[in-house]
C-alpha cells in the first residue's frame, strides 16, 4: 500500500513546504509593498530573518517555564504535519490517512492552544491579551471551517483530504454552486486563521490591535524563528488547502512521476496568484475592531451553512 515513490513524494512535499513557506510570506510582503507604493523588501527576507534568529541567543524572561520552551517545537511540528497531509503536488501521501480534514482542524487547534498557553506563560499583559484573542478567533473560525469541510465531504463522500481532492480534481466538469459559498467562507476563515487584515495585522506592533504578534512578544532567537516559520507554514498550508479544494486541477493523482513534476510549476503559479490576491485584499481592507471579528466570521459561518444547504437541496442527486 505504501510505495517507495509515495514515501519519496511525501518527503518531497514536506521539504517543499518547508522551503516554499517563507518564500510565500516574502512574496505576500513584496506584493503588499507594491500595492502600497512602498519599496519592497527583498523577496528572500524571511530566510534572512530565520537565519539571523537561529543564530541569536535565546533571551528568556525570568518567568518563562519549560512549556514556553517546548511550545515552539510543538507548534512547528503541528504545522509540518498539516503540510504533510495537505496534497500540494500529489494526492498519494502515505501520511494522509493519519489525519482527515477533521483531524486537520484538530492539528491547527492543537497549535493554537499551545501558542496561546505559551503567550500566557510569562505573565505579561500583552501575552494574555493575545492568548485570549487568539482563542476567540479560534472558536469563531472553527465551526465555519467545519461547515466548509462538511460541504466538501458530502460532495466527495469522504472526509479524507486526499480523497476529496482526488474526487474534485478528476470529475467531469459539473458546476457546484455550493462550492462557491464554501470557497468564500473558506477564504474568510483563512484570513482570520492566518492573522491577516481585516482580522489582524501581521505587520503591526501597535499593541492594542494585534493578536498574533502580541502572543509572541516574549519569544526570541530560535524559538521566534520556529514560530515565524510555523506561521508561514500555516499560511502555506491554508493556501495549499484552498487551492487543493477549490482549484484542484494539476495535482498529481497517485504516483505518476511526470504529473508530479508538472505539478510543481503549476503550484508555484497558483501560490503566486494567491499571494498576490491576498496582498491585494489586505491592502484594500482596513483592520476591523476585535469585536467586529465575530460578525466577520459569523458571515463566514452563514455562507458555509448556505453552501451546505445548497449542497443538500440542489446537488444531493449528483
Amino acid at each position, binding site marked *: 500500500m505504501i510505495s517507495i515513490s509515495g514515501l519519496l513524494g511525501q518527503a518531497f512535499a514536506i521539504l517543499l513546504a518547508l522551503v516554499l513557506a517563507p518564500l510565500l510570506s516574502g512574496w505576500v510582503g513584496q506584493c503588499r509593498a507594491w500595492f502600497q507604493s512602498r519599496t519592497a523588501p527583498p523577496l528572500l527576507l524571511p530566510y534572512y530573518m530565520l537565519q539571523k534568529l537561529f543564530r541569536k*541567543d535565546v533571551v528568556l524572561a525570568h518567568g518563562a517555564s519549560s*512549556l514556553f520552551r517546548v511550545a515552539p517545537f510543538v507548534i512547528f511540528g503541528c504545522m509540518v504535519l498539516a503540510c504533510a497531509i495537505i496534497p500540494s503536488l500529489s494526492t498519494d501521501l502515505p501520511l494522509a490517512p493519519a489525519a482527515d480534514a477533521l483531524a486537520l482542524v484538530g492539528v491547527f487547534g492543537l497549535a493554537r492552544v499551545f501558542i496561546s498557553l505559551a503567550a500566557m506563560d510569562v505573565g505579561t499583559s500583552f501575552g494574555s491579551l493575545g492568548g485570549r484573542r487568539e482563542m476567540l478567533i479560534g472558536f469563531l473560525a472553527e465551526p465555519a471551517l467545519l461547515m466548509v469541510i462538511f460541504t466538501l465531504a458530502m460532495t466527495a463522500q469522504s472526509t479524507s483530504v486526499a480523497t476529496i481532492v482526488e474526487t474534485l480534481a478528476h470529475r467531469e466538469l459539473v458546476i457546484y454552486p455550493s462550492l462557491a459559498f464554501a470557497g468564500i467562507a473558506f477564504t474568510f476563515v483563512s484570513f482570520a486563521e492566518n492573522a491577516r487584515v481585516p482580522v489582524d495585522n501581521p505587520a503591526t506592533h501597535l499593541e492594542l490591535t494585534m493578536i498574533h504578534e502580541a502572543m509572541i512578544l516574549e519569544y526570541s532567537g530560535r524559538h521566534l524563528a520556529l514560530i515565524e516559520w510555523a506561521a508561514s507554514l500555516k499560511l502555506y498550508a491554508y493556501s495549499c488547502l484552498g487551492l487543493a479544494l477549490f482549484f484542484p486541477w494539476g495535482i498529481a493523482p497517485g504516483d505518476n512521476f511526470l504529473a508530479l513534476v508538472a505539478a510543481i510549476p503549476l503550484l508555484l503559479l497558483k501560490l503566486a496568484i494567491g499571494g498576490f490576491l491576498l496582498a491585494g485584499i489586505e491592502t484594500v481592507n482596513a483592520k476591523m475592531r476585535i469585536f467586529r471579528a465575530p460578525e466577520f466570521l459569523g458571515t463566514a459561518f452563514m455562507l458555509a451553512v448556505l453552501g451546505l444547504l445548497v449542497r443538500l437541496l440542489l446537488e444531493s442527486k449528483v
Partner: protein
Amino acid sequence: MTSLLPIDILLIAACAWLAVGLLGLVAPRNTRFISKTLFPLGAAIGMVAGFVALDSLGGPAQTAVLVIGLPDLPFHLRLDNLSAVFVLLLGFVSVGISIFAAGYFRKGEGTAPGLLCLEYHVFLASMLMVLLADDAYAFMVAWETMALSSFFLVTTDHRHEEIRRAGFLYLLIAHVGAIAILLSFGVMTGGAGDYSFAGMRAQELSPFWASVAFLLALAGFGAKAGLVPLHVWLPEAHPAAPSPVSAMMSGVMLKTAIYGLLRVSFDLLHTTIWWWGVVALTVGLITALFGVLYSTVQNDMKRLLAYSSIENIGLIAVGIGLTLIFHAYRMEGLAALAMTAVLYHCLAHSAFKSLLFLCTGSVLHATKERSLGKLGGLIHRMPWVAWLALAGVIASAGLPPLSGFVSEWLLLQSFLFSPGLPHPWLNMVVPVAAALVVLVAALAGFAMVKFYAIIFLGQMREPGLKDAHDAGTWEKVGLAWLALITLLLGILPSTVISRIDAATRQLLGAGLGDKLHEQGWWMLAPISPERASYEPMIFLVTIAATLLLGRWLVRHLYHGRVRRTAAWDCGYYFQGPRAQDTAEGFSQPIRRIFEPMFRMERHFPTARDAQPYYSVKVEDHFWHWLYLPVANAVGRVSTLIVALQGGRIAVYLMYSFITLLVLLLVARP
C-alpha cells in the same frame, strides 16, 4: 477458580469495597492506616474489577439472583457487555482516584477519615451495583445509595453554609430524578407488575407509553447526568466536594446516568421513535453549549470543570440522540458509529475529567485556594501536576492526539451521514447541528486554556503561592495513571473500540468491529479508509519526530544558548502579576459575544468612586426561569394550606363536622 464467573468476582469486589469501608470505622481517626492501607486496597479492588470487566467483554451475559431484596423481587444481577464497558470505566478510573486519595486525605477535614473511607467505598460499591442491577428495585436501591453516599462525601466539610446548600440541592435533584426513573420503570412494566429488567424487556409497549417511559428516563437520568435544565446541582456540588470525590462524581457517577439512559433506551425499550433522538439531540446541544459557555466565565477552578462536565454530558447526549435517530430508521451501521462515539466519550471524559479534578485537588492542597484570581505560575512549583494536567487539558479541549478528540471525531463522522436520513427536516437540520458541536469543542478549548493558563502559567498572583509544593508520590501516581489512560485512549482507538464494540453490538445488533479488524491497530477508519481515517499514533509520532529532529538540528547546526532576563512586554515598566489577565478578564470576549446567555450583575467604576472597582457576577438563568418559580409556587400553596392549622379548636371541629357531613351526603356505595 474456574467456577468463579466474572459476575461473581464483581460481586465479591463490591463486598470487598464495603468491607474496606467498614474497616475504616475500626480506627476512624487513624489517618495513616486508612490512607496508606485502605485506599490502596480499594484501588487494588478497582483494578481487579476493571480487568474482570475487560476480560468479560464480548462474552455472553451472566446473571445472578441474590437472596436479598424484596420478597417477590430479590436482587437480580446481570453482567452484559454494556455493563462491562461501564464497569471497566469504573474500575480503572477508580484506581487512579483511590491512589490519589491515599495521598490526598492527610488529615481529617470536617469528617473523620474513617467515615470518609466508608462513604467513599460505599459510593464505589453502589456504583458497581447500579451497573450490575437487573431489576428495578436493586437498581433503585443502588442508585439512591450512590446518591446518598456521594451526598455525604460532598458535605464532608459541612461547616460552610454554601457546602450544605450545595449538598441539599444535589440530593434534592437526585431524588426528583430518582422518582422520574422509578416512574419510567413503572411505565415499562406495562402493567404486568414484573419489575425485573427481563420482565420489562418482554413487554411490548405502545408508542405512546414507550415515549412516556423514554422521556421520564431522559429526565431522571438527565437530572443525575446534569442535562439542562436539571444541571444546577452540578456546579454547586462539585466545588463543594473534596477533589477525589468531585473526580469520582464527574468522572464516574455521571456516566452511570448515561449507562441508565442507554440501558433504558436501547435495551429495555424495544421501539425507538425518531423524535426521541431529536429531543435528546436538542437537549444535548443546549446542554453542551450552555455548559461550555458557563464554564468559560467561571472564576472558581472546580466550578469551571463542573460546567465543563455539563458540556461533555451534553455532547454525549447529542451522540445518544444521533444513535436514536439512526436506530429508529434502521440505519444500524451508522447508529453503531454514533454509539461508539458515545461510549468512547464516556471513557475518555471519565479519565480526563477525573484527572483534571484531581489536579485541582493538588492545587487546592498546595495553595488552599480555589479561586482562579488568586492562582498563577504554579508550573514552577508543581511541574508534575502541571504537565499531567496538560494532558487532561488537551484531551478536554478535544484536540488530537488525546482521548477527547477521538470521540469528537467519531461523533462528527456520524453527523456527516445524517443527510442520508429519510426525513426531509432531519437531513437538513442535523448537519448544521454539527457546527454547534464544533463551536462547543472550540469553546471548550477556550475554557481549558483559561483553566490551565491562569492556574499554572504566568506570574503568581498572590505572594503566598511561592510556598506551594508539588503533589506527593501517591498523588503523582494517581494522576499519572489517569494521564496514561487518557493517552492510551487517545492513541489506541481501534484497540479500544474493538473491545467495547461488544456493547454496541449488543444494543444495536451491529458494530464497527469487523471493519476495524481488517485494518491495522494503529488506524481508525470506521467506514473505510477512503472515507475517513485517523491514525493518532502516526500523528503523535510525526509531531514528536519533528519536535525532536527539529531540536536536534537546531542545536547541532546552531547552538542551545539561553539567557535569562526580565520580560520585555513592549517595554512596559509595570509588569507585576496584577498586569496579567484575570479570570474575569480572560472570559470578557465570551461574556460580550454571548451576552444574552448570561444573567450578569456588573459594577463599573465611575470617575467619582473613592475606591473604584469592577466586578461581574454571572448567574444561571435557569434559577430564575425554573427553580425560583417552582419554589415560590410551593411556598404559595403552603401558605394556603397552613391556614388549615389556624389554632382555633372550633374551626378544627368544624372541619371534622363538615367532613362527616360531606361524606354522609356524597359518599354512596
